[in-house]
């Protein structure tokens, strides 16, 4: 099966692009592909634990935990994340923290690369 490297930049709330990225990763993982997701920009706000899932808003925690359980690698840009006031101990368990070269390394190994742009 293939290796898919997804770069995800949009914010969790305000559009459905983040949700699409999660659904796509889930579908690819279900088909047996190896999937990695890199969060940068506003998408890094999604890694904060203890999100309250109000029905009018997208949530990051539930799909991220499900993807991690399926073996999807998820990493957040440390600089982007701390710039938004989220510290590592507050992060969803299983999310990796690293720098931008993490994404480039996954791009190097990938058969297909998607960059899902943000604001």
């Amino acid at each position: 099966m293939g290796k898919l490297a997804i770069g995800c930049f949009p914010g969790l709330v305000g559009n459905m692009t983040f949700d699409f990225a999660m659904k796509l990763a889930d579908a690819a993982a279900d088909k047996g592909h190896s999937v990695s997701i890199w969060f940068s920009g506003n998408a890094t706000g999604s890694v904060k634990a203890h999100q309250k899932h109000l029905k009018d808003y997208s949530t990051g925690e539930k799909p991220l935990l499900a993807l991690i359980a399926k073996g999807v690698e998820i990493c957040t840009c440390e600089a982007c994340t701390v710039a938004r006031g989220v510290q590592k101990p507050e992060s969803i368990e299983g999310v990796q923290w690293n720098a931008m070269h993490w994404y480039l390394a996954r791009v190097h190994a990938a058969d297909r690369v998607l960059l899902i742009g943000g604001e």
Partner: protein
Amino acid sequence: MGDVKVAMIVQKPQYKGETSRLAITHAISYQTVEILLEDGETVTPKLCFIGEGVLGLQKGQNAMELYGITSTESHMKNTLLVDLDVLVCKEDLDKYGIPEDAMPNADEMGADKTIQVVPFAEIQKAIEEANHVMFF
């Protein structure tokens, strides 16, 4: 695969959103990716500015003085300092009336590279030669 070529295409100005600025910093990170790769493996980005992406590259920016943040000009100098290939679409510069000599350089920092103002055909070639293309 030894070297993986990535064409990073910036279509939006940095002052309209964070993503186009992140294109620049992601490209610069090619310098340190080798710590996560095997011997002989590399990633080679080409950073290309097209459309509205050519806006906001001009020299003489004062973002640090006025906003306390790094300017796009400063980021562009860093790309040159780490020997990135930076291509700026000539047709789009002409469209917006931006002269080629408004592009910054990093001569004073000792950079060997300069920003390459090129016809779109050159950027198209970079896209065709790349293993992966990213649109920012």
